[in-house]
């Protein structure tokens, strides 16, 4: 009995698997539904029951997706795991009774995801690397600017 109950917790991963396997060819008016369709169950479970979406499972689903779409293995795994990592901090701003808010949250989540996904897949790594470099350099440049700011503040 306990085994059956525990296996029911695999439902979120199964929904992901189902959508990857079935939805990879779906199109509406010539436009693909993937990868936005994949993000719907990810977001849903991250909002309503994140502990049922283990990192290992997301990693595996990402591998399957990458293998199917002929991407570098691990790319989608990385993005999905990152979503799971950031998910709990965003969760506290959402209310389960406010569907429009949760819907809006999905818009922001999927938009951000697809922006980075598109940048990496299209081969425009330059912009992506530039973004990472910007984040790394921010503390140093901000420290210099804050010193300058402090010095100027005395006289102005």
């Amino acid at each position, binding site marked *: 009995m306990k085994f059956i109950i525990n296996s029911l917790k695999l439902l979120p991963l199964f929904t992901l698997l189902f959508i990857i396997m*079935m939805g*990879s060819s779906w199109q509406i008016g010539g436009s693909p539904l*993937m990868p936005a369709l994949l993000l719907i169950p990810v977001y849903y479970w991250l909002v309503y029951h994140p502990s049922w979406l283990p*990192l290992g499972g997301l*990693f595996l689903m990402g591998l399957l997706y990458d293998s*199917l779409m002929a991407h570098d*293995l691990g790319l989608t795994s990385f993005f999905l795991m990152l979503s*799971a990592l950031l998910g709990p901090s965003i969760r506290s701003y*959402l209310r389960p009774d406010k569907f429009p808010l949760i819907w809006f949250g999905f818009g922001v989540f999927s938009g951000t995801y697809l922006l980075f996904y598109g940048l990496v897949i*299209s081969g425009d790594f330059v912009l992506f690397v530039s973004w990472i470099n910007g984040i790394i350099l921010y503390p140093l440049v901000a420290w210099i600017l804050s010193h300058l700011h402090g010095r100027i503040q005395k006289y102005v």
Partner: protein
Amino acid sequence: MALFKRYKKPGPLKPTPNPYPSRFQFWRHSLLASFILILIGVGTLRFYKPFYDPLQDVLFEGVAWLQKGFLQPFHETSALLKDAHQFIYLKDEHGRLKLENENLHKEIQALRSLAHENAALRKMLNVPSVEVVKYSAARVLSSPYDGFHRFFLIEGGQKDDLIKDQPVIVEEGVVGRLEKVGAHVARVLLLTDVNSRIPVVTSFSNEKAILSGNGSSLPTLVYVNDVKKIQIGEQIITSGLGGVFPPGLPVGIVDAIENGKIKVRPYVPFQKVEWVQVLKIHPENFYKEVNTALEEK
């Protein structure tokens, strides 16, 4: 027992309670620790080729079969409905096929005499005979598409003597080429994919070019000598340069010319394709010849 429970307005989402009471369990399931460990482990193995390449092959094969398992009931249902539909119109279909058969018999008779004449003329002029290309038919398992990449996964692989870069065609024209070949499944890079490049020639203006996929349904012609010579509606066929695609295979027609950009509409209705034919050509010097063709341009 109360028949109606009073509706309780749900509060904000709270973190789910920690299901792991011990510290070890907590650490084991800690998100950040797992994330970093997976990232370091997999990131290291990603650049270790003896591990990465076999993993990629195994996953490719496994995912294709897993997807086949998922899609099989739907394919079977679709086939059943199609069969039922055909059964209803069996008499009409029989009549149509009988007529088609008679017409084909007449065409074969006419072609036989032409073939004899052709062979005799070739012999007289000492023209070498044309090599007959063998082909292998394969069923399309699925067609994954994410806006950038567009493929067919087909049921055929190394066991059917398929090798990388062999051309894939259907009755209407060129579909693409084999991009990855597993033991039992293979991936076809469609001519609309961003990575697809096919040497072609226009039928009237005789302009050689490369058909370049861009992820949309209308690939474009690049490396064209004189864009002004090309007209809308002109047929695009393979040029034979590159050694992958034999010359003369229909590819599509020129759909639009906008700001010097020539868009081609492929003949193949990719969404309706169920079976494809793989031409068993050995594209040994493919890349070398494509480079030579581009250098000549």
